[in-house]
């Protein structure tokens, strides 16, 4: 499961074409010669989808075997190109995080942007890498997976405990037998000692 591209765009009603503010691409899955084509496609598609996304709206568009998720928040729009096995919820929480980061770092300067910005935003690039695994993006998913692992471990522990219980039961049986036998031994020894005079 991989992310092909992440884009941050500005799409307010006053700009007819959304402006790409930051982008990060990962075309490793595609043929090298198609890279510029795909880059063009990603830009075009991303800006179209972002332009059609109304504020406070989340959308997912399926294109062949890639899914484009876009999330518009007050004019700042994040678009992600992922394959269709990436869970939708994680995708949107990832876009959420990206937008938060962007707003934290760039503040409100993006509102005045009119042209495609040339600056690179390294966070986006490493986000692309880091969030290949949807569990990273979605905390809920991570928690769920960890809880599942813990419950498996717990079940194994319970099984071991049951086995221990059985062993302890057999031990208690054996020890009580031993107790009785030793008691008989003691009694017999006492009996031979004091009972009959030696003949």
């Amino acid at each position, binding site marked *: 499961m991989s992310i092909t591209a992440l884009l941050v765009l500005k799409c307010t009603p006053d700009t007819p074409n959304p402006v790409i503010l930051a982008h990060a691409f990962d075309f490793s899955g595609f043929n090298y010669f198609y890279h510029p084509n795909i880059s063009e496609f990603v830009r075009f598609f991303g800006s179209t989808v972002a332009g*059609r996304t*109304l*504020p*406070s*709206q*989340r*959308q*997912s568009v399926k294109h062949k075997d890639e899914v484009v998720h876009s999330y518009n*928040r*007050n004019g700042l729009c994040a678009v992600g190109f992922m394959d269709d096995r990436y869970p*939708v*919820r994680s995708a*949107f929480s990832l876009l*959420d995080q990206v*937008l938060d980061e962007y707003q934290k770092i760039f503040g409100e300067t993006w509102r005045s942007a009119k042209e495609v910005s040339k600056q690179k935003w390294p966070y986006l690039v490493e986000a692309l890498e880091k969030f290949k695994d949807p569990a990273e993006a979605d905390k*809920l*998913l991570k*928690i*769920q997976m960890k*809880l*599942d692992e*813990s*419950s498996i471990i*717990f*079940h194994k*522990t*319970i099984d071991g*405990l*049951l086995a*221990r*219980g059985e062993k*302890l*039961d057999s*031990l*208690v049986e054996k*020890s*009580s037998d*031993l*107790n009785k036998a*030793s*008691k008989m*031994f*003691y009694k*017999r*020894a*006492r009996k*031979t*000692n004091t009972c009959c005079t*030696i003949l």
Partner: protein
Amino acid sequence: MQARRGQSSYRDRTEEFFGIVETLRRSTAPDAANNVPYGGGGGGRRDDPRSAVANQSEFKKRAAVIGLAINQTSQKLSKLAQLAKRSSVFDDPTREIQELTAVIKQEISSLNSALIDLQAVRNSHNDERTISRDTTTHSATVVDDLKNRLMDTTKEFKDVLTLRTENMKIHEIRRQRFTSNPSKESTNPFVRQRPLASKPAATQPAPLPWASSSSSSSSSSQLVPRRQGEAESSPLLQQSQQQQQQQMVPLQDTYMESRAEALHNVESTIHELSNIFTQLATMVSQQGEIAIRIDQNMEDTLANVEGAQSQLARYLNSISSNRWLMIKIFFVLIAFLMVFLFFVA
């Protein structure tokens, strides 16, 4: 001729009936209102003292009025059910349905308040003067009956509304399947109160889907406000088409629902884990007890074996020390033998 054949197995009680009617008419004039679906409560009224009759008749009047209104409401409801069932994709009698829903909702709320008034009236009557036990039980039964009927009506109302929303969902799906536009302009009639409740901010609060999905469950005491909420949302739906974003809502619906579901799963997993923990703890404590028993057994065994060993050691000692005694005894025996031998030989 055929009418006359065979035994007449019925008793003609027409005169009794007329007599009762006369008595009733003489006792209270407003008894005529009892002909309404109120039921056969009029027969027992004869025995009441005159002073209480006026109050009772007021009670009866009100109860009769309420019963009639409940009947009418249920009729309207059945009409609404008809409309909701037969709605097709293209000629949706939405407006009539909306009107009917509003009317029914109003009637139900007014009936509810009327019932509450009736109950208050009855309580005030009970407090004023001493009346027979039968009267109290009767009025209580009447009020309960009316309440039950009202509850049934509201339940039917709710069912009709659910049916209606399902139908609209199906329409929605069909429309999406057959039109080639992206579903931005489509209506979202199955959105409950989300256009109002959702903030345009980024994160939606997670309890929203629970709140909206729980509106389909109703408790009897809150039937009326619930129905108000549901019925209000349907006129709102029309507005929502013009105002708010529509595409957002089903997708955020699924998004929010998936988040809610994930949270539910997490919560249930944690519950299971806590169960497992408690079981673990109990089992460990039980096994600890078993271990203590084993320990006890082993100590006893040790004590026994040590005792036995000491006994045997003493025995050994006694044996080894007794040999001298034995030798002495043997010597004595041999001395006797010698004496015998000397005597014989």
